[in-house]
């Protein structure tokens, strides 16, 4: 039932709370591209970046049913890797191509300082590493994707377009992600019309509430943030 998915969006109150109490705290985020979409990962969860095209990586094990990872050999060690496009339902099971892709290494740090239970996440491209104020982080309602992704997406960062444009062509965002129902309507159809309306104003409005909002004044784009700890738990079952 809907009741199970309750999630509070306080809206204006939420923003006011952030504006009145700026945290000045920053988090470092690595922005990656997966299936033409930008995603953010906390740098505190990433320990290294591997380029599979340098000959050090070979695929050792293919997917088995219900398994979210494959195994590769990296510098003589076996390493479990998760394909982000697959786990995010952004690909249709195309064969794994390691070349031209990048692997972010993650895991847990043992008190001795060594990384234990390592794993890698495969992305298409690394866009940029940037610092984001915690005031620019927003929650995403869990009921949107709880059933399929659990808490893998833990929030969104509101980023100025310039942050992404530096290394990334925004026009190429997401060619096929949301069109699962076979219609032509996707999020891509919208930016074209992001201009003040000339028609369609509500007639007979009896309250100012219904005057169409004319200016958003916030051009920042929400970028989904992924929690690698969730993937770690899935791989190592803890």
């Amino acid at each position, binding site marked *: 039932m809907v009741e199970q998915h309750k999630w509070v969006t306080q809206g204006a109150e939420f923003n006011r709370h952030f504006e009145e109490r700026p945290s000045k705290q920053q988090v470092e985020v690595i922005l990656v591209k997966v299936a033409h979409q930008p995603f953010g990962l906390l740098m505190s969860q990433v320990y290294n970046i591997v380029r599979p095209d340098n000959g050090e990586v070979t695929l050792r094990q293919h997917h088995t049913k219900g398994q979210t990872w494959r195994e590769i050999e990296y510098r003589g060690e076996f390493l479990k890797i998760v394909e982000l496009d697959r786990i995010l339902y952004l690909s249709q099971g195309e064969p794994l191509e390691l070349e031209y892709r990048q692997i972010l290494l993650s895991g847990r740090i043992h008190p001795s300082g060594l990384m234990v239970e390592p794993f890698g996440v495969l992305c298409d491209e690394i866009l940029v590493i940037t610092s984001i104020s915690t005031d620019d982080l927003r929650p995403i309602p869990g009921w949107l994707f709880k059933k399929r992704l659990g808490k893998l997406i833990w929030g969104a960062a509101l980023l100025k377009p310039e942050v992404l444009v530096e290394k990334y062509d925004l026009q190429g965002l997401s060619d096929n992600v949301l069109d699962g129902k076979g219609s032509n309507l996707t999020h891509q159809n919208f930016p074209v019309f992001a201009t003040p309306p000339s028609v369609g104003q509500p007639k007979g409005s009896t309250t100012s509430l219904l005057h169409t*909002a004319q200016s958003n004044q916030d051009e920042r784009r929400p*970028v989904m943030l992924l929690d690698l700890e969730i993937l770690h738990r899935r791989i190592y079952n803890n």
Partner: protein
Amino acid sequence: MSEFQFGLTAPEPQSEAERLMLGLQKRTSAFQNEQDQEPLVSLLTFNLGDEWFALLLDQVKLVSRLLEVAPVPGTSRYVLGVINYKSTIYPLIDIHELLSLESQMPTRASRFVIINHNQYAFAILVDSMTEVKEVRERELEGQIRSNKDISHYIHSELSLNERLLGLLNLDAILHTVAEVD
């Protein structure tokens, strides 16, 4: 001694028609009083395809022009993504398919209606806004004549200006969006 002797005039005997008219006036007046006491409900009406739908005005936070939509993977097929309106993120839902309507390409008349329903805040895509209608609360209890496939998502149907207006059932819509992959 009869009362007529004190200058009081006897009421003239009413004709049948007059009595009926008097009765009608009383009933009209009573009906008017009843109507005045019954609360009015404001509905925000809009079009989805060629169909006319409404939401309770109290549930509507605002109506926005189209904004950029950021995709969210792993959501139900009814979710187009999220929008950033004044630093708040709202899921955007396309309810055309739920209502057995063909999705329309957005035009300059399309709008996002941002809704606060119970503890949920989200936006729906509508093809064009129409107007705010005030109706009697009792009219919201009308029978649903739409086909069974979509009647679940319609709370009630009203006949206004010779058009059928469907009041959306947000609980049912949210339930489906949250549950269906």
